[in-house]
C-alpha cells in the first residue's frame, strides 16, 4: 500500500475564521500528526492563489490526501474537489472541516472555538486516511422534460423548452390549464387583462406538437435519477409510464382560507369576501353586496393570514399591489363609493409598483394602518342606525385612535400558501420544503431554481410567494437550466453510492426493504443483493441496516466514520 501523505490547509476566510480561531495554532498542532506532510494556514483557500498553492503542494510533495478546514462543505467541497482533479488526484481523497458556519460564526470564546476547530480538523485527518478513490460515472440525458403544474409558470417553461425543439410532458391535476392567472381579471401595476395574457399561452401549449398535456392527471410515482427519470401518471383511471431527463416543478400556490381568523367573520357575514372572490366579480363586471345592491363603502384589508405568527409568518408579497389594483378597479366601477384600504405596511415592491401606489393614493381612497401586534381589525354587523352593513373596528396606528369604519363590502387580501400537494410532490421528487411548505432552492442567490436533487428544478410560487412577472422569470430560468442540461448530452452522477460485498452478503434481503429508491434487487442465482448504482442516491440507509456488514456506503464507510469519531475525540485534555 502506498504511503499516506496528507496536506492540511486552514483557511482564514479573511477575518471570518481568523478573528476568532487561532489558525496558526491549529496548523502547528496538525503538523504533529502522523502522515501529515504539509499543514498550512492561508487567507482565502477558495481563491485562485489558494487553490494553486494546494495544487502545487500536491504535485511537489506527492500528497495523496487533502484536508481543508474552512467554510461548510456544502459551499466549497465541489471547488476543492475540482482543484484535486486538476492536480491529478482523485477528488474523493478530500475532506473538509467546517470551522466557519459551525465554529467561528457561532462561538464567542476564542479558546473553545480553537479547540473545537482542532478537534474537527483532527477528525478530518483521521477520516481522510481511509478515503478511497471513487470514479465518476457518466449517463446520457433523456431530452424530454416533465413539467408539473399548468399555471402560468408551467406553461411558460413548457413553451420555452418545446420551442427549443425538445419534448415536454405537462402534468396538470385539474381539468384546465391556466392556474390562478386564469382566475384573475387584471394584472398590476399595468392594469392589463390577465386573460389576454394567459389564453394565447394555453392555446400555444395545446397546439404545440412537442408538448403533451396531461389534464386530470396525478403522479403516482417517480423513479430514476437526473437524466433518466420515469414516472407513472394516472389519467382518468388509467396508468401510463413516461420517461424524461429533467423535472420542472411548478405546482403554484393556494389562497389561504380566512375562515380560521375569527375577527374577520368570513363565511359568517356574507359581505366579507376574499380577493379571489372579488376577482370573479370583477371578471363579471359588477361588484355587488350579497343582497344585490351597490356598495357605498368598501374596505380592503391587507395581510389576511400573512406576517402573523399565528397563521403565516411570511409576507405574501403580491397582496399590497393587488389591493391597489382593486382600489383602482373599484374606483372606476363605483366612482362615488368610499374606499378604505386597511393595511399593515404598504409593500408595493417591484418595478412600477411604487408609482402605482402614488397614483392610486390620489384616487380618493382612505388609507388606514393597523398593527398586527395590537390585534386584527374586527368586523361586526352594523346596527340599523349605522347607515352601513358592517362596522370594522381597530386601533389605527398612525392616529393612535380606536376607530370605526362603516362598510358594506369587505375584501380580505388573503395570504398565499404552498399548494396542498406540495408535500406529496416533494416526496415524489425528493426535494425539500422550508418551514412554510414552500420548496427550498439549492442556493437562494447563486442557484435559485435548482434544488438539492439533481435534475429537479422549481419555478414560480411553489418556491415562495411572488408575482406573475417573477414567476415567469423563474419559469424561463428553469427552462434554460433544463435546456443546458439537455445540450450537455450526458452528465456525471453520484458515485458515493452503496456497494455490496458479494463475498459476505448472505441474501437476507433486509436492505431491499429499506431502500427508498428500489435501487437494490435480489440476485437469485448468486443469492446476494445487487445495487443499481444509477438509482442509488447514496443515503447510506442500507449500509447501516445490513446485519451482515456486507454493504459499504461509499465515502461514508464504517471505518471512515469511526475514524472520524476517533479523531474528533482525541483532543481531550489539551489546552492552548
Amino acid at each position: 500500500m502506498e504511503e499516506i501523505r496528507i496536506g492540511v490547509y486552514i483557511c482564514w476566510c479573511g477575518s471570518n475564521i481568523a478573528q476568532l480561531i487561532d489558525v496558526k495554532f491549529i496548523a502547528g498542532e496538525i503538523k504533529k500528526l502522523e502522515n501529515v506532510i504539509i499543514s498550512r494556514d492561508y487567507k482565502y483557500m477558495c481563491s485562485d492563489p489558494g487553490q494553486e498553492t494546494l495544487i502545487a503542494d500536491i504535485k511537489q510533495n506527492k500528497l495523496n490526501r487533502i484536508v481543508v478546514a474552512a467554510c461548510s462543505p456544502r459551499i466549497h467541497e465541489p471547488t476543492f474537489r475540482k482543484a484535486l482533479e486538476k492536480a491529478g488526484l482523485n477528488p474523493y481523497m478530500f475532506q473538509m472541516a467546517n470551522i466557519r458556519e459551525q465554529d467561528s460564526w457561532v462561538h464567542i470564546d476564542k479558546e473553545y472555538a480553537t479547540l473545537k476547530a482542532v478537534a474537527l480538523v483532527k477528525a478530518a485527518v483521521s477520516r481522510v486516511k481511509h478515503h478511497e478513490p471513487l470514479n465518476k460515472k457518466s449517463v446520457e440525458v433523456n431530452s424530454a422534460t416533465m413539467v408539473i403544474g399548468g399555471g402560468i409558470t408551467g406553461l411558460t417553461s413548457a413553451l420555452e423548452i418545446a420551442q427549443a425543439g425538445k419534448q415536454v410532458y405537462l402534468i396538470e391535476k385539474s381539468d384546465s390549464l391556466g392556474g390562478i392567472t386564469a382566475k384573475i381579471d387584471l394584472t398590476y401595476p399595468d392594469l392589463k387583462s390577465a386573460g389576454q395574457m394567459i389564453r394565447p399561452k394555453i392555446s400555444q401549449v395545446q397546439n404545440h406538437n412537442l408538448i403533451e398535456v396531461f389534464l386530470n392527471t396525478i403522479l403516482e410515482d417517480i423513479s430514476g435519477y437526473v437524466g433518466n427519470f420515469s414516472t407513472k401518471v394516472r389519467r382518468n383511471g388509467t396508468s401510463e409510464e413516461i420517461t424524461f431527463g429533467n423535472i420542472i416543478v411548478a405546482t403554484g400556490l393556494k389562497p389561504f382560507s380566512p375562515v380560521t381568523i375569527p375577527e374577520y367573520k368570513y363565511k359568517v357575514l356574507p359581505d366579507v369576501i376574499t380577493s379571489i372572490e372579488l376577482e370573479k366579480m370583477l371578471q363579471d363586471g359588477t361588484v355587488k353586496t350579497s343582497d344585490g345592491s351597490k356598495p357605498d363603502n368598501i374596505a380592503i384589508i391587507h395581510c389576511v393570514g400573512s406576517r402573523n405568527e399565528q397563521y403565516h409568518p411570511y409576507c405574501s408579497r403580491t397582496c399590497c399591489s393587488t389591493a391597489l389594483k382593486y382600489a383602482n378597479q373599484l374606483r372606476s366601477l363605483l366612482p362615488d363609493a368610499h374606499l378604505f384600504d386597511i393595511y399593515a405596511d404598504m409593500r408595493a415592491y417591484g418595478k412600477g409598483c411604487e408609482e402605482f401606489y402614488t397614483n392610486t393614493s390620489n384616487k380618493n381612497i382612505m388609507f388606514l394602518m393597523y398593527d398586527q401586534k395590537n390585534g386584527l381589525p374586527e368586523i361586526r354587523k352594523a346596527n340599523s342606525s349605522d347607515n352601513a352593513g358592517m362596522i370594522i373596528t381597530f386601533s389605527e396606528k398612525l392616529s393612535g385612535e380606536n376607530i370605526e369604519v362603516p362598510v358594506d363590502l369587505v375584501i380580505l387580501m388573503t395570504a398565499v400558501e404552498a399548494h396542498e400537494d406540495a408535500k406529496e410532490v416533494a416526496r415524489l421528487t425528493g426535494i425539500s420544503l422550508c418551514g412554510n411548505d414552500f420548496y427550498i432552492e439549492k442556493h437562494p442567490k447563486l442557484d435559485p431554481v435548482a434544488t438539492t436533487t439533481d435534475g429537479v428544478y422549481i419555478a414560480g410560487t411553489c418556491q415562495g410567494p411572488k408575482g406573475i412577472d417573477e414567476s415567469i422569470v423563474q419559469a424561463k430560468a428553469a427552462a434554460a437550466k433544463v435546456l443546458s442540461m439537455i445540450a450537455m448530452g450526458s452528465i456525471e452522477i453520484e458515485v458515493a453510492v452503496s456497494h455490496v460485498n458479494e463475498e459476505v452478503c448472505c441474501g437476507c434481503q433486509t436492505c431491499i426493504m429499506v431502500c427508498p429508491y428500489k435501487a437494490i434487487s435480489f440476485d437469485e442465482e448468486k443469492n446476494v443483493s445487487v445495487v443499481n448504482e444509477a438509482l442509488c442516491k447514496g443515503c447510506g440507509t442500507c449500509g447501516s441496516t445490513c446485519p451482515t456488514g456486507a454493504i459499504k456506503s461509499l465515502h461514508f464507510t464504517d471505518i471512515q466514520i469511526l475514524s472520524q469519531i476517533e479523531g474528533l475525540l482525541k483532543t481531550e485534555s489539551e489546552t492552548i
Partner: protein
Amino acid sequence: MEKEKPKLNLAVYWGAACGGCCVSVLDVHEKLFDVVANANLVFWPIALDTKYSDVEAMPDGFIDVTLYNGAIRNSENEHIAKLLRQKTKVMVAYGSCAHLGGIPGLANFHTGKEIFERVYVSSESTVNKEKIYPQTSYKIPEGELTLPEFYNDVRTLGQVVDVDYYLPGCPPQTERLLEVFMAIVKKEELPPNGSVIGATDKGQCDECPRKRSDNKKIKQFKRPVEVIDDGETCFLEQGLICMGPATRCGCGYRCIEGNSPCRGCYGPPPGSPDPGSKMMSAIGTMVGSDDPEEIAKIVEQIEDPAGTFYRFSLPAAILRRKLIETTVS
C-alpha cells in the same frame, strides 16, 4: 509414507469455559486415530495428567498447535494463556468464549464483587452468615494456600495474548476442527494470522433452508414459545430474533435445523466493527412502525437487547462491559 513425517505437538486447554469445547474435541470419535497418528497430545487437562510445571519445562515453541478454549476470567486463565503462547507456534482461540468472550462474557453485566456476593452470600441455596469470600491467599500453619485472582472483567483470549487463528462456535463443529487440523498437518497454505478459520465469511442466510423475502417489517417480537413455527418461513419474518444474517456460517445450521433461531455463537462476518451492533441496527430498522409511541411499544418486546445481540460477544464489543459506578475507583 506419512509416518516418516515428525508428529505435531498438540495442546488443548480450557480457560473460563463450560467444557463443551473439550468435548467437541473428543467428538472426533474414530477420527481420533487420524489425529493421534499425526500428533502428540502434550497437554490436555481434561484427558491427560500433565502438570503446569511440565508445560513450563517445555522449550519455547515446543507446542505446534494450542487449542485454547474459554475466556479469561481469572489470573490462572491469563497466566496459562501467556505461558502457552510462549510455548506455542500456532495459537488457536477455540470456541466462542476464547473468540468473543462467549457465555462467561455475559458476566460483564456485573462486577466481580457482585458475582461473589451473589454466589457466596445471597444465592438462595447458600448459607454464609460470616460472609466469607474466597481469598487469593490464605495462611495456614503449613504454609500459604493460594487461589487465582477473580477479575472484575471477562476478556477474550485475543485481548490477552496474540492469537493466530480463531475457530468460532459454541462449540465449534468438530468437522471444522478436523479440516483445520488436517490443513495444518498437510502444511496447506494457511490464511493470514488473525483470521477466523473453520467458518465462512457469509452470513447464515446463505444456505439457510428457510424461505426468505424482503418483507421484514416486524410488528411484534416474539419468543420461540409464542410462535407456531411453520418450519419454512424465515424466523425474522415470523417476529423471532434470529442472529443468522449477522453470524458466520460453519456451524452446519444445527440450531436452525432444530427449528430454533440462530443465537450467533459463530460471531459476525468479517468487516463488522462490533459483534452485535449491526444486528441491533438491522432489527431496529425492521420495527414495523413510523409512530414513535408504537415503535417504543414494539421495541419494549425485545426483553434484553444487550444479552440478545451480545450473547456470545459482550467482552469483544465496543462497550465491553456494563458501566457500574463502583468499577471506577
